């Protein structure tokens, strides 16, 4: 079968968990339609193409590159640059590539602290000589090399220019399918706002089946402490549901399983900072007659950063503890 007239598509995983690759498989038999419409020139998860195959392609010859995972080390940084050069349309696929994702919570700490936790101060590690992995190490028979572990995690757009972003941890299968159809030539729906695709211009609340009773929140609670009343808005019951500060598109799947939205689709359209948006939303629903009472309520939030910025730390105003530090 000739691939000459076909689009060329690539999928790559960097510092991710593999869930994005699985989410692409979630479109089921329709993956065969994708293979029909496009020649897959690089998909390490499923096909045997090499770095050298990508290097030998002319610049700009990949029509669509789906890049998932953040950039945690020098090797991933190099591949991001290579794929940018070879691709006409570079897609940040999934929360990690688009917004940093959960692994970017590491930006609250440092490389030294991560090494300390993993290799030294750890109940099962026995390392009296304080050995740590080295970028270069001389083995008896020759030198061995490891990629450089960066100080922080980067979004894809922190290291190369990105054309569109498909959020979600992982992106929901129907949104992936819609996105692929557009990327391969179908007209884009009106709901695609700016460079962010495969999601709704509205929030998770707009897709949520639970009922808002317009009651004020007088205390924040944690989900292991009580059984929420079925059918009633989780936020109004005191759970820090990120629905009002999170872009829709998933269909409120977590809420349907009885759990609060944790914000994986990132901030709503036109909002740069998801945490700030959530704090704004909370100010409208807390039962605080005065500043003192409001402060008391806020102090009940067990982990503000990990709750409000779970998926977007490098994207928000907070950035990293030392942003862009450690990059070579």
């Amino acid at each position, binding site marked *: 079968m000739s691939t000459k007239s076909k689009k060329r598509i690539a999928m*790559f*995983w*960097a*510092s*991710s*968990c*593999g*869930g994005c690759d*699985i*989410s692409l*498989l*979630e479109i089921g038999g329709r993956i065969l339609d994708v293979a029909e419409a496009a020649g897959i020139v690089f998909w*390490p*998860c499923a096909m*045997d193409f*090499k770095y*050298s195959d990508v290097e030998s392609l002319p610049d700009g010859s990949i029509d669509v590159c789906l890049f998932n995972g953040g950039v*945690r*080390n020098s*090797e*991933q940084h190099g591949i991001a640059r290579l794929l940018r050069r070879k691709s006409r349309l570079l897609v940040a696929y999934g929360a990690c590539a688009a917004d940093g994702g*959960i*692994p970017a*919570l*590491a930006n609250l*700490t440092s490389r030294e602290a*991560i090494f300390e*936790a*993993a*290799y030294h101060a*750890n*109940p*099962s*590690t*026995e390392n009296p000589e304080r*050995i*740590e*992995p080295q970028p270069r190490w001389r*083995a008896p*028979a*020759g030198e*061995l*090399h*490891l*990629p450089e572990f960066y100080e922080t995690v980067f979004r894809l757009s922190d290291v190369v220019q990105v054309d569109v972003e498909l959020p979600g*941890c992982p992106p*929901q299968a129907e949104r992936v399918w819609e996105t692929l159809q557009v990327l391969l030539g179908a007209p884009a729906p009106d709901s695609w706002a700016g460079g962010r695709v495969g999601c709704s211009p509205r929030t998770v609340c707009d897709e949520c089946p639970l009922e808002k009773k317009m009651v004020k929140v007088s205390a924040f609670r*944690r*989900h*292991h*402490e009580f059984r929420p009343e079925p059918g009633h808005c989780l936020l109004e019951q005191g759970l820090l549901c990120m629905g009002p500060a999170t872009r829709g598109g998933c269909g409120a*799947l*977590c809420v349907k*399983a*009885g*759990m609060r939205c*944790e914000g994986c689709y990132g901030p709503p359209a036109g909002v740069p900072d998801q945490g700030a948006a959530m704090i704004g939303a909370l100010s409208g629903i807390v039962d605080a007659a005065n500043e003192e009472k409001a402060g008391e309520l806020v102090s009940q939030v*067990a*982990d503000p950063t*990990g709750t409000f910025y779970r998926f977007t730390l490098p994207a928000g105003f907070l950035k990293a503890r030392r942003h862009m530090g450690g990059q070579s």
Partner: protein
Amino acid sequence: MNHTGDSPAAGRRITIDPVTRLEGHGKIDIFLDENGEVADCYFQVPELRGFEKFCEGRPVEEMPRITPRICGVCPEAHMMASAKACDAVYGIDLPPTARMLRELQYNIFFVTDHATHFYALAGPDFVLGPDADPGIRNILGVIAKAGPEVARQVLQCRAWGHEAASIFGGKPVNPVNAIPGGMSKGINEEERARLEEICSFMVEFGKLTLNILHDVVLADPRYLDLILHGPYYSETYSMGLVDERGQLNFYDGDIRVVDPHGAELCRYRPAQYAEHIAERVEPWTYLKFPYLKKVGWKGLVSGHDSGVYRATPQSRLNVSHGLATPLAQQAFEEYFGTLTGDRSGRRPVHHTLAIHWARCIELIYAAERALDLVRRPEITDPDSYRVVCGKPVGEGVGTVEAPRGTLTHHYITDERGIVRKVNLIVGTTNNYAAICLSVKQAAQGLIRKGAEITEGLLNRIEMAFRAYDPCFGCATHALPGRMPMELRIRDGEGNVLAAAKR
């Protein structure tokens, strides 16, 4: 990129970077001596993500949602180990329905996960053959050879497995429902009936898989010879979870370790893991090497005196006194009868490639177990799918068998249940030393002076680690790509003497 031959002692060097058809990234460096024989071999894991550090400060009840992002291939394993550690942090004994729901969800996940490995990652080496054209040596080639009906069944197993995950936990990838004290939601009769249909199908799918294994692999003398007599045999300790009858359980139990001859070294509760397991750090890889403390670290060597152990489907059968379900027990006896001559399973199997066979037996066990659980009347009890937690005890360990080995989460919290310390020993990490050993052994057995380095030879080296279904994403809490491989033999100046790639 690959610097080579820079030590005066080095003759030549072979680099396989990156290796393929595993989950995650690995790189193999093989050093040859002046005679062209393998002098040394390193299997490097090039990344780390630092979950153990950045989970500090998070509310512990969020850990079952955060840690599945260690691995999107086996998120249920992390969710369950994490939820169990949380139960312990709050000193909770689960109500029966909650316990049953977790085990049911987990066994359905096991079927899906094992099926993916057998058909998509490992199957090509056997169905198509280790020397087949690499262009067809993949899942599409397997489907072409096995026929459209088998393809339909494999796709249905994946699709229905993920449908089950959504019924339990909302999202098909990274479900969210296991929480301290049980599950965020129960299942109703309509959901239960659909799950029963899925489990019934999975039992049939397990039978089909064992039949394919027999017809395609075991009935072929070339493969049987490769399994029994190829350079894929390591006598190590074996680890796995067993229930009160000493039988395999994926969700809960004691950790049992047997020596290379099958004698019990230790049996302990998960909370005691640090008394029995220690981890070694090496400068040439980001991944640590767990070993048995009682035996000690003697380097990357096998045998009775080395603390290297394996925690694979094969190891789990080695530590188990039979299996609790009928079809799986029948397959268990046949497996041990063929490989050790003793159907009771008292003598451990050490043939690395037979891990694939053990995985198929586990697949049908998981399906039968799930079908048994989904038919229990208490499973739809609307009240006891969870209990509410009180004050935290402050420390908890949770262990399950992940598809790739024993998975342990250990949390220490403050009095508000905020995480202060995290330790994770994940499935593949247990096997890291053994994987290094197996790869070196295959390289030594296959690379001989003057022998032509073919693509098939390289693939046979890769088959040594593929048997473990390794997931270095899990292991390092990082997942770079699953790359094709390239092998270069260089001289002391770094000049390429020979190259093979696919």
